[in-house]
């Protein structure tokens, strides 16, 4: 749970939205805050926090919180 908490916080801080709104369903474009620029920021923040390189195809897949949680889960070997 600790890890997921950390990820939620990272998403909330990068998108500048309250952490309570970070649910599986939150997606790119839903929110004025999650546009192209913030998506790049978010991808770079995840790369830095988890020490991974995200490919262009992966970046396109990671367009909602559910996909990001699953991706980070895999990175963490869950």
């Amino acid at each position, binding site marked *: 749970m600790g890890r997921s908490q950390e990820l939620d916080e990272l998403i909330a801080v990068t998108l500048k939205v309250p952490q309570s709104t970070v649910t599986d369903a939150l997606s*790119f474009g839903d929110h004025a805050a999650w*546009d*192209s620029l913030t*998506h790049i920021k978010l991808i770079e923040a995840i790369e830095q926090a988890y020490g991974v390189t995200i490919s*262009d195809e992966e970046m*396109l897949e990671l367009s909602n919180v559910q996909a990001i949680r699953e991706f980070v889960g895999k990175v963490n070997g869950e």
Partner: protein
Amino acid sequence: MTAAVGKIDFKDGRSLRSGFIWHAQQTPERPALVVGATTLTYGAMDRTARIWAKAIVDRLPRRAERVGVFAYRSQIAYQGTLAALYAGAAYVPLNRTFPVDRTISMAQDGRLDAIIVDAASLPQLQEVLSALNPCPMILLPDADIWDSPASTSVVTRRDLETTAPLGILPPVLQDDLAYLLFTSGSTGKPKGVGVTHSNILYFLEIMQRRFGIVPGDRFSQTFAQTFDVSVWDLFMAWEHGASVYAMRQIDLLAPTKYINQHQLTVWFSVPSVVAFMRRKNYLRPQSMPTLRYSLFAGEPLPRRSAELWLEAAPNSSVENLYGPTELTIVCVGHRWDPATSPALCLHEFVPMGQLFEGLCGIVVGPDGTILADDQEGEFYVAGPQTVPGYWKNDEQTADRFVQMLMSETQAKRFYKTGDRVVRRTDGTYLYLGRVDHQLKVRGYRVELSEIEGLLCRDLAVDCAVAVGWPFIDGRAEGIVAFVAGKDVDIQRLKGAAQKALPPYMVPNEIHVLEDMPLNANGKIDRLVLAERLAAA
């Protein structure tokens, strides 16, 4: 420069919709548009456009002059554009990603007869309508019911299901407006630019001579429809029976996958798409082999972006296109040639290129005289792509559209672009910057693009903007630069600037940004940068 070629015959009653209608009759089964997982054929879109046009024509007591399309990257956005033209009207794109006040201002100025609205824009509709008097009729092709606030006519999906297609379309004259777009005015209030069928048909004809589009071509659609380059995406394709691929915003961050999946042949975007890809190392050699044209417009194209894109799309011709909305999309272009283009680059940017045939370009000095080649001045363009003027704004029209005497007997009507250029003796135009980006710093004339070009030479820098700062009594005391990039070494940049530039051009401060602020059209928003300095 004479305008000897390019006379286009309008006797056959052609207009912006003609190409689509012709292909719908000839090859109704061919794909016209792909949005998400849906493919719409020419035949299907033609039928829908006729139904929507019928719904509009039947309910209005007069001919529809202007129809708003309040829809964004949806089927309705594209279908609505066609339907407006089929109804004999100019289309006026509205954008739900803009602030509602801006949309209201555009809808008020546009004096719309009808608005076609998609489901995602519906939540803003009530607020927009409450500011409009009289209230235009409303078409809601993907809603079954809607509580109309005003006593206006509302057409829902159910009504459209029982509407027959319009057989004979209202006629359109060549001087009628094809579309009305709003550009950001320096006063902060958007200015309407009405483009006629004659303007756009000339443009499409010249473009076809340059590109030779065929029905098998597959076009990217990257631009918001409120940005006039989107007109190329749709109508250059439809004029020649090709298909349009509407991309999602997110796909623009890494378009390689989409381009390959759909085997796109024509790419057109702002250069900042390339800047993103460079920053993330997403531009891989040979990765986009299906492209035969790679077009960029909207802001200056850095030389390295052109080079890297060409490596990634080696079968394509990479072209830098230039033009303001007032000159109908683009009017100057340069085809990148790795052998000869680098020598033509100024400040590490790809040249604007050669003026399209049939247009007349002059470079004008501060005193209003026409300058010889190799002299720097403001770029004026006359000819069939110069629009009639600003919409319902005689004052601004008189300010920017001027008659110039070309000989004792001949005057031409020019649009003053506000861009500073120089024309080489071979006819190549080079971009120097906006007239208002040329500054005097402590009495010296400074070209901001020269500083930006120098900073961009640093491999870590993706993008650089220089602004005059601080201003004292309206005069710049120095230069501040903003750069975006990864692992930027400010000391190294300052050192490079000191080595190459006179002291008054060396930025006093260089700020590293995670990303450049962009305006609604994806161009760098200098105003926001200036505001940040003012607020600091």
